């Protein structure tokens, strides 16, 4: 046996509530993050990701309270992203009980942060979050996927595959690869993008954006070559439970952890 493929649930948190948007526009509040976290833990999710999508100074403490409550309530690892742009803010969430921090736009603006974080807390703590947008391939962006930041609003002119490769050499221990064109659309992951990145780096790759049914996750970790697949809407709204998703993946021959 070897490392199992992971199913990860992403919870966007706004003002202490789980929220979900579509293509970064229009959010609906869903409920208490701790209740969601415990439910997914009991269903056998392998990991959780919490994104502070407001990331304003005054709401930061409220978010850290959520992180602490989650840490006391679940039995699995989780990472935290959003609003983390310094060693101090990384330390805050790690001390609150998170296993990993996810750096997205701040890593693009200040790539040295990846190295500093890896040296201070270990590479396994540092997840590079990347929002990828499909574009016409050019000499600058040969993969045809451009890094976008600030929730997808700002293009950077950088190639996703090149950026992830650089981030790996700078110390990132994992990459969460979010295809913003398919995020929230639930029509399957961007498999070409996932495969290109998985082939380019040796750190684990989490496919994100587009999960709508269990076969999509199977595709992400087989055709896409990902180590994990991230879901949100397909479980938040009750269409699937984690055990249902994993049972179907297992039936498709994917090695997953089965708790029931």
């Amino acid at each position: 046996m070897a490392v199992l493929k992971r199913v990860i649930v992403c919870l966007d948190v706004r003002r202490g509530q789980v929220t979900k948007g579509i293509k970064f526009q229009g959010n609906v509040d869903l409920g208490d993050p701790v209740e969601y976290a415990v439910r997914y833990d009991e269903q056998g999710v392998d990991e959780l990701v919490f994104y502070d999508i407001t990331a304003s100074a005054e709401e930061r403490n409220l978010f850290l309270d959520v992180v602490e409550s989650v840490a006391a309530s679940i039995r699995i690892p989780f990472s935290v992203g959003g609003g983390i742009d310094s060693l101090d803010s990384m330390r805050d969430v790690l001390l609150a009980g998170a296993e990993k921090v996810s750096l997205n736009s701040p890593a693009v603006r200040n790539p040295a942060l990846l190295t500093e974080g890896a040296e201070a807390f270990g590479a396994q703590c540092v997840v590079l979050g990347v929002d990828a947008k499909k574009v016409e391939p050019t000499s600058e962006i040969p993969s045809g996927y451009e890094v976008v930041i600030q929730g997808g609003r700002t293009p950077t002119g950088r190639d996703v595959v090149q950026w992830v490769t650089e981030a790996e050499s700078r110390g990132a221990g994992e990459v969460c690869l979010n295809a913003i064109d398919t995020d929230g659309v639930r029509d399957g992951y961007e498999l070409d993008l996932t495969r290109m990145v998985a082939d380019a780096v040796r750190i684990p790759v989490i496919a994100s954006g587009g999960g709508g049914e269990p076969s999509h996750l199977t595709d992400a970790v087989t055709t896409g070559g990902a180590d994990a697949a991230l879901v949100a809407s397909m479980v938040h709204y009750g269409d699937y439970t984690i055990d249902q998703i994993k049972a179907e993946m297992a039936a498709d021959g994917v090695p997953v952890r089965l708790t029931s």
Partner: protein
Amino acid sequence: MNGMAVAILDYNAGNVTSVAHAVRRLGFDAKITADHDTIRAAEHVIFPGVGAAATCMRVVKERGLDVALREAVDAGTPVFGICVGMQLLFEHSEEDGGVDCIGLLPGRVRKFELDDPALKVPHMGWNPVLFAKGEPLANDLVGAADTACYFVHSYYCDPDPSVEVIATADHGHPFAVGVRKDNLVALQCHPEKSGPVGMSILSSFLGGN
């Protein structure tokens, strides 16, 4: 049984809080401490760990925790090393250019050198763990359909053949996930983050095994 003090050794390691949460959830009184008297008085001692070996070892020595651990082991107190806490129990680690460790267990800590690009380092995620028959830590896992545990590490323990290996997993090659020497046990995986399987392991340890 419940309410007994569990000393969780404090040396700025990353997962101390998570271990304390898990211990408290099982109904025990968790004390995160580097105080030798508190450690002496504890019914159980947990030596957790996430971090780089050299830094961890430096703080362990500054706080005299190597001495406290040896004392606890000699006194017969059940002691549980987790992740880096397991690695530091051995004699030497290859990490950070080579670090002399506590040496309660004969053996060395080596880096995963894996040629297959599909095998990632750090070894991170859930991996099925095979426990030795009759191993008390796995008492409640006998017949369990799935015994996958959560791992995050780039180095693994290579115990001397004299050390009893109580659990193994595979990452490129089989490696020792767990070892036992009388009242001293250690696991490379994180029971505090391994869902119901991990809670069962911790519960077995605190139950007196």
